[in-house]
């Protein structure tokens, strides 16, 4: 049982504490503080960044990633359902999906820019396409490998295909796709958001701030920037995963 004093409670923190200790020791004994700032110096630099308004960039990137992810679900799940229901269609689209999944999606920003959208539509659209195909593919695959028992119950009742789709298959697909896909695709959305922001620079965004960091003379602000961005990514991941677990409670 997990209690306040049991090792299980403290084990997740052990890795972080270990890393910080190694980092601190390396910063003290081995490295030049200019190139490897101590954890304390990094925390100070991170605090300074927040005070200078970096929190706005973090929030803007997170909002961009989250809205793109929700749009990716809205596109990916219906497409995945369609492909999963008609296995011939899915088989004929597998190569296309493999291509789309493998394409570095931030390159698609060029398509949006040429089409005349260089603003938020281009950024969110590009990030959405980074994960929509993954969600569609996972959703289709989950339907193809679905254990037929619940469907069989309805088929024995002589339910129509529409009834089976709307009362069972949609829920099955959501349950089997969203939770596993949430962890990977929200991370992808966050990463691609920062890349896209560096290419099509918005007023606020982690990627937009990245360019400023090339001009700094020491590593403390860079480490502070990395620390805050990483923590935001972890927080976003946790929020999405928890929310998905609450919404898709039957998974």
């Amino acid at each position, binding site marked *: 049982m997990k209690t306040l004093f049991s090792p299980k409670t403290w084990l997740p923190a052990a890795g972080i504490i270990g890393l910080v200790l190694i980092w601190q020791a390396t910063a003290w004994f081995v490295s030049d503080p200019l190139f490897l700032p101590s954890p304390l110096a990094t925390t100070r630099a991170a605090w300074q960044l927040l005070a200078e308004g970096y929190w706005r960039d973090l929030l803007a990137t997170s909002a961009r990633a989250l809205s793109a992810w929700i749009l990716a679900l809205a596109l990916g799940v219906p497409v995945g359902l369609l492909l999963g229901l008609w296995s011939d269609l899915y088989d004929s689209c597998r190569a296309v999906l493999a291509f789309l999944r493998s394409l570095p999606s931030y390159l698609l920003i060029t398509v949006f820019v040429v089409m005349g959208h260089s603003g938020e539509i281009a950024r969110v659209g590009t990030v959405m396409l980074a994960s929509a195909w993954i969600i569609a593919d996972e959703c289709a695959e989950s339907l193809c490998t679905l254990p037929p028992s*619940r469907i069989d119950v309805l088929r*024995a*009742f002589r339910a*129509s295909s529409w009834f089976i789709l709307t009362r069972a298959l949609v829920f099955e697909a959501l349950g089997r796709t969203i939770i596993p896909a949430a962890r990977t695709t929200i991370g992808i959305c966050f990463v691609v958001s920062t890349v896209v922001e560096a290419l099509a620079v918005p007023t606020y965004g982690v990627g937009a701030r990245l360019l400023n960091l090339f001009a700094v003379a020491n590593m403390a602000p860079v480490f502070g920037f990395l620390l805050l961005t990483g923590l935001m990514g972890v927080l976003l991941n946790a929020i999405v995963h928890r929310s998905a677990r609450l919404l898709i*409670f039957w998974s």
Partner: protein
Amino acid sequence: MSLIRVNHLAKAFKGSDGQVNQVLQSVSFEVKGPTVIGLLGPNGVGKSVTMRLLAALDTPDSGSIEIDGEPPINCRVGYVPPTNPVFGWRRTKDDIGIGMEMVGIPRRERHTHVAALLRRFSIDLPLDQRTHALSSGQRQMVNLARALAGHVPPPLVILDEPWAALSSAVQEEFIRHLESIRNTMDTVIFLSSHQIDSAILACDWILPLRERPVCITQDDLIPVNLPRPRPTNVQQTVEFLELLKHIESVFHGSAPLTV
């Protein structure tokens, strides 16, 4: 009175190596409701294949099935697969009532009917709870109730390995519910098992599936001539033990069953 007629049913499957695996050679029998028939046999002999054919979830290679003179595809069948599935996103009352929802019965009426059905058979379930949170015993009760729910009871209910995942106490409770259903509803209930004693307790007839390919005629049906309702000490009676011995002898030489 429900009448199930099975004539020379045959089914084979092609393996990945291209070899034809004949599961059912010729299965013929006729049963009238209300009754409980137990398909008894070792794992992989063809119990589930027979069950799925009866539910018209698969089509036979040859032969026919009639439910009250109709092909099974025209009849609503209560089917409970061996995996004990629930529609976990639904509340218990909506999960049980899904078959009624299918035919357009309004929500309030469905809930009233489900509550009445559970009261009738003394099945205690949390009606407002989502079914994904239920125990395996409660899930199996949901499955049983769902198979039966409807203004007209289904002529055929199929329970594939209904107590495979149940503890012995829940299994006993399940068999008691089956008995009261059998006594009050005009339904033919088929169940599959590899537990001889439980099958004797629950069933009126035992259909022994010894080995592949399965050949069954009306004469192979073994009647369970034990009083209904089953007395609490029925398992200690001479009749029960003799029947147990007889069924064991039928399976002598085939894969082992559990008692």
